[in-house]
């Protein structure tokens, strides 16, 4: 009841603001069901979402805000009619102000910031966290916008981007360890995150160099007073990426050197410095049929036998594949897959999108994690789910 009152207040404020400032507004209404694919039943969900977006764009200034109103029903045990939880959740997805100068764009507020050019696996993309518990057809559902300042300075075909994120938000992994306390970095100036990215192009090749100083978005387990603690560790990331198109191919590459706090590799509770790179290509088999194939390597540096954490692997090779078939503007089929060679674990995301009519879409698919229990994707089996969503845009 309290939630419903809050909902009404937000809607009232929304329409008041949008009429006072004659802002444009739009949004969508969606109904969704996320049936589980494995036990336990922690992520069996169904519900509805109403998203309201308002935006104002003038010559040199703009404002954008979108709010989600989620009525979410979760099944938290194997009993269908028991142990259910339902809640109305209201939260901003994004809300930011944009100021444009002749050669500079300034963006302040809660926003998505993505770096990198490769598909799905982006070593340089360490700013916007993931929600691995909710991978569906839409990026808004599985990435979490961050409060930040972004400044882009454009000159010629080049661009320098400065990003500042004062407060750290980690990935949502769904991981819960009984008795382990989670410790987020304290909100103080030493823990502010910042980075810079230079992008340009030459002879048809687009490229970027980037630097990011922040925290690892994934948690680490460290012992403290005889107990285990979940914490997030500092790292610096030096990145590079490129793309080049020729004929029906777009070649892409992205790599990063992660400089962690364990520079010499003797601390088993802090990740060692490591390198990760992705090399791949898009290939337009036909106009409607696109393939993407990538090779991924992760190499741990300063490897010290006897001083390594059990989750670290000296060398890990993976591959990813994306097959997309689209018949615009009616429907599209997409299959995304990531496979780790050593453990044989994999992640598959098939998505079917159908435009029922102008502005009404149906999404169907599944996010499937499989592999041995101690492998990266095998550990996340419980996050596997199917999804079906119908979305009406207005």
């Amino acid at each position: 009841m309290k939630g419903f009152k809050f909902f009404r207040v937000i809607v009232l404020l929304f329409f008041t603001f949008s009429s006072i400032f004659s802002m444009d507004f739009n949004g969508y209404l969606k109904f969704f069901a996320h049936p589980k694919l494995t036990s336990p039943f922690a992520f069996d969900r169904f519900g509805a979402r109403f998203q309201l977006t308002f935006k104002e764009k003038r010559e040199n200034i703009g404002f954008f805000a979108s709010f989600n109103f989620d009525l979410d029903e979760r099944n938290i045990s194997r009993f269908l009619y028991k142990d259910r939880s339902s809640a109305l959740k209201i939260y901003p997805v994004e809300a930011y102000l944009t100021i444009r100068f002749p050669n500079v764009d300034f963006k302040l507020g809660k926003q998505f910031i993505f770096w990198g050019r490769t598909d799905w696996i982006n070593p340089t993309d360490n700013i916007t966290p993931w929600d691995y518990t909710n991978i569906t057809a839409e990026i808004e559902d599985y990435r979490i916008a961050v409060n930040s300042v972004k400044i882009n300075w454009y000159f010629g075909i080049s661009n320098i981007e400065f990003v500042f994120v004062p407060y750290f938000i980690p990935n949502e992994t769904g991981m819960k360890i009984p008795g382990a306390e989670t410790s987020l970095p304290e909100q103080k100036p030493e823990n502010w995150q910042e980075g810079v990215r230079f992008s340009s192009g030459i002879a048809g090749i687009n490229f970027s160099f980037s630097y990011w100083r922040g925290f690892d978005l994934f948690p680490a387990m460290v012992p403290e007073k005889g107990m285990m603690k979940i914490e997030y560790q500092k790292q610096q990331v030096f990145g590079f990426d490129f793309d080049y198109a020729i004929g029906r191919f777009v070649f892409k590459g992205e790599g990063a050197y992660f400089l962690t706090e364990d520079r010499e590799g003797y601390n088993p509770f802090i990740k060692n410095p490591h390198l990760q790179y992705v090399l791949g290509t898009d290939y337009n088999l036909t106009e409607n049929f696109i393939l993407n194939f990538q090779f991924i390597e992760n190499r741990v540096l300063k490897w010290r036998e006897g001083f390594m954490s059990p989750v670290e692997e000296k060398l890990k090779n993976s591959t990813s594949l994306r097959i997309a078939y689209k018949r615009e503007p009616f429907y599209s089929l997409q299959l995304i897959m990531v496979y780790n060679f050593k453990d044989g674990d994999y992640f598959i995301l098939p998505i079917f999108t159908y435009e029922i009519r102008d502005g009404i879409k149906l999404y169907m698919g599944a996010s499937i994690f499989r592999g041995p229990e101690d492998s990266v994707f095998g550990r996340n089996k419980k996050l596997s789910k199917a999804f079906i969503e119908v979305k009406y845009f207005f």
Partner: protein
Amino acid sequence: MRKIINIIFIFLLIIPLSGENFTGIQIMEKVVKKTGWKDMEGEITMKITVRGRTRTRKIKLFSRKRTEDESDMVMKFLYPPDVEGTGFLLIEHAKGEDERYLYLPALRRIKRIAASGKGGAFMGSDFSYYDIGKPKLKDWNYKNLGLVDFNGLKCYKVEALPINKKIEKDTGYSKIIHWIDPEKWSIVHAEYYDRMGKIWKILEVKEIKNINGVWFQMHLIMKNVQGESVSEMKFENIEINKGLSPKLFTKRYLMQ
């Protein structure tokens, strides 16, 4: 003697009017001259119908000729709301690969996409990127097939054959036949043949308007006679040669 000279003089004047003396390339040069523009801004409403199902797309389009052989184009989707904000940028290069970028607001990032050739479908419609662009005269051998009657209008019928297999493969056409109104020097009807030599698509131009001295095709219908699809493209709020800023044709603008 004077009478004979007069007859010869009158005969010489009449011959060009009969049209038979224009070569195919001369006609196409006139078409490009009379319908060509340096830059253009406007809105397009596209209706795509396949087996009775129709989807509508509205876009804002900016285009400019950067050089004689190079154009830039940027499109922003306005309707329906689920694709609003989607942007597409095409930067043509006379030498080297064209650059194509797609901005999907849902992904919040610009993606470089492969050029699927000039024959790629424009917005998923029956129009290809080649169809909506300016014809590159050096890519085709044109032949004047004479003046013919087309819906009560005297038109030049001009056959275009690709100069080589590469152009044929790139556009997907083995032959195009144009019907050209000699008053406006604008294409009013066309037939497109696939690489097997079979008729593939038929273009009907429903409305041509003079904007700033340029004859502009405002309403076009492209029918795929091999499939069961038809695409209708209507232009509105067209402005021509207003001197568009080069900043529009950048990745920065695409994301705004």
